[in-house]
């Protein structure tokens, strides 16, 4: 990542640690650092979430708007991702410094959500061919502590889980135009089905092995990292009708690579398998946390904890 220098001896120490499956803070290669999650932090957004993973801090807001569907997909809604790298994270993001990173993350998310098996865009349809919901997903990176992609994808999924879309009360047909009347009551709204939404898992190749959830120092040691987008499992998010559906194998929606290095085919295969395992445990933990939070504030949320410690 950004502008971190490491001495050769520190790099050697990290490298040997990864080979030994024992990293500098005692984690093994497939362990994540503890995370903190809060949803519904931004009161004027349709849905929002804040995720903190060690020093990485992500805030996601979802905004809804009515739009005309694409002619080739008349029954689908739209998603748009926008990433903003705050200059608070590192001074390098000042001005246009973070643009490249922001674009690569938003492209990655766009690709991961593209498949209909990952996110069903039909649930955003209002009138086939005429009107649909467009979700603007704004991602704000407030602090960088390594492993941005994973944190972003988790926060996005949490924000979508929290998103409420108002019901349409009435519609007036006036020639070719449609006039919609939306419900004013914020609780007269529907929730999205995000169970299968994808999560990104970054696998950092250090030496011959891959690690999950790299810290900023570890990212600095690797020449290449693989980013794997994997679909989630509905059963973690909707436990009530869990028995009705079969457990789904997670599917790979996107693979990206970062960095100048190269990967051997066998390493790639191993890395993807490692990613699937990691994504599954991430998905399960996220589902548990989200359900717990929803249970805690049925109806109105008492107060938000926000950023203050």
């Amino acid at each position, binding site marked *: 990542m950004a502008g971190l220098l490491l001495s050769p001896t520190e790099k*050697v120490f990290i490298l040997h640690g990864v080979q030994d499956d024992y990293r500098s803070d*005692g984690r093994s290669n497939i362990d994540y650092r503890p*995370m903190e999650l809060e949803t519904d932090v931004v009161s004027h957004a349709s849905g929002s979430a804040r995720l903190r993973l060690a020093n990485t801090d992500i805030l996601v807001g979802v905004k809804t708007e009515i739009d005309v569907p694409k002619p080739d997909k008349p029954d689908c809604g739209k998603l748009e991702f926008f990433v903003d790298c705050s200059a608070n994270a590192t001074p390098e993001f000042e001005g246009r410094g973070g643009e490249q990173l922001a674009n690569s993350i938003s492209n990655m998310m766009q690709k991961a959500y593209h498949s209909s098996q990952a996110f069903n865009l039909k649930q955003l349809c209002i009138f086939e061919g005429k009107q649909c919901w467009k979700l603007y997903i704004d991602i704000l990176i407030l602090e960088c502590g390594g492993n941005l992609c994973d944190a972003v994808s988790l926060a996005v999924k949490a924000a979508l889980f929290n998103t409420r879309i108002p019901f349409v009360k009435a519609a007036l047909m006036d020639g070719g135009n449609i006039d919609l009347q939306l419900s004013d009551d914020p609780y007269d709204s529907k929730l999205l089905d995000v169970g299968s939404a994808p999560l990104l898992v970054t696998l950092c190749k250090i030496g011959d092995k891959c690690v999950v959830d790299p810290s900023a120092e570890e990212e600095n040691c690797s020449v290449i990292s693989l980013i794997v987008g994997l679909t989630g499992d509905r059963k973690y998010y909707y436990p009530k009708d869990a028995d009705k559906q079969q457990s789904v194998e997670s599917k790979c929606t996107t693979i990206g690579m970062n960095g100048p290095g190269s990967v051997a085919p066998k390493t790639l295969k191993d890395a993807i398998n490692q990613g699937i395992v990691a994504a*599954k445990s991430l998905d399960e933990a996220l589902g548990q946390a989200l359900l717990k939070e929803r249970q805690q504030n049925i109806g109105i949320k008492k107060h938000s*904890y926000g950023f203050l410690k």
Partner: protein
Amino acid sequence: MTGHVSIRLASERVNACVASGSELPRFYTPGEVISGMQDFMRGHGTYAEDDCLKASVAGVMQKVNKLICIRPLKSRYVGEIGDVIVGRVLEVQQRRWKVESNSRLDSVLQLSAVNLPGGELRRRSAEDEQMMRKHLQEGDLISAEVQSVFSDGSLSLHTRSLKYGKLPQGTLIKVFPSLVKRRKNHFHNLPCGISVIIGNNGYIWISPQKHDLMVEGNVDEIQNYDMQPVTRSDRETMARIKNCIAALVASKMMLDDTSIMFAYEESLKYELVKDLLDPEAMLDIAFLTQHRINNIMEE
């Protein structure tokens, strides 16, 4: 083979405060009026405006007779002569290195202020100026002592002793400089077989203890020795100490060899080092350490 993932909710956030006294000092925010101008003297962290004394930083007040200072809660490192620091070489320049030391301005290490490895005496020649990068290059970590402070507040360092110089394998933790206690000695060989350098600038270096110091060995031999893998048991102890320091810092406790060692001993009840990353375990360790320190103070 399953990884360990834990996602906590913000509502379950742990308050990391371990201070026993419930009374918190009064905090001043920048621009807040401290007092009228009457007959107080303006100290660091304050300014005078509209016949009032106001705080220019966020912090707590310190009063010495008539002198009022505001000590900031969070600040960069302000160096003093004789401080031990850990820094990172940023740039190799003409006859000097630029060193990042967590202070407002980058510090300077003059070529004339270093001892060459192996105790070799430096010949002042052009050749040895060209060899500078061989000695210390960009990204290298060094331990050094503050030799003098320039008028703009930047520091001049020296490594003219065997204990200072380039650091071998290990890990660095960055903490607030205000949490480091000023002590006679900042190089500690802990009884658990790990050596720790607690830099006054808030950079703490953890490395395995060197068993045989090869002062006599030539440069290549030392380099070779530096690249040997660290044993698993040393690695575990280092990770444990790293997580213990992180726990103490999260609870804003002062760091020195005793508090680190107490935290280490208390942490032994958690068998897996990665369990110490959990906020509750961190609070537990900080609390127990505080308790032990209080006990010692009473005796």
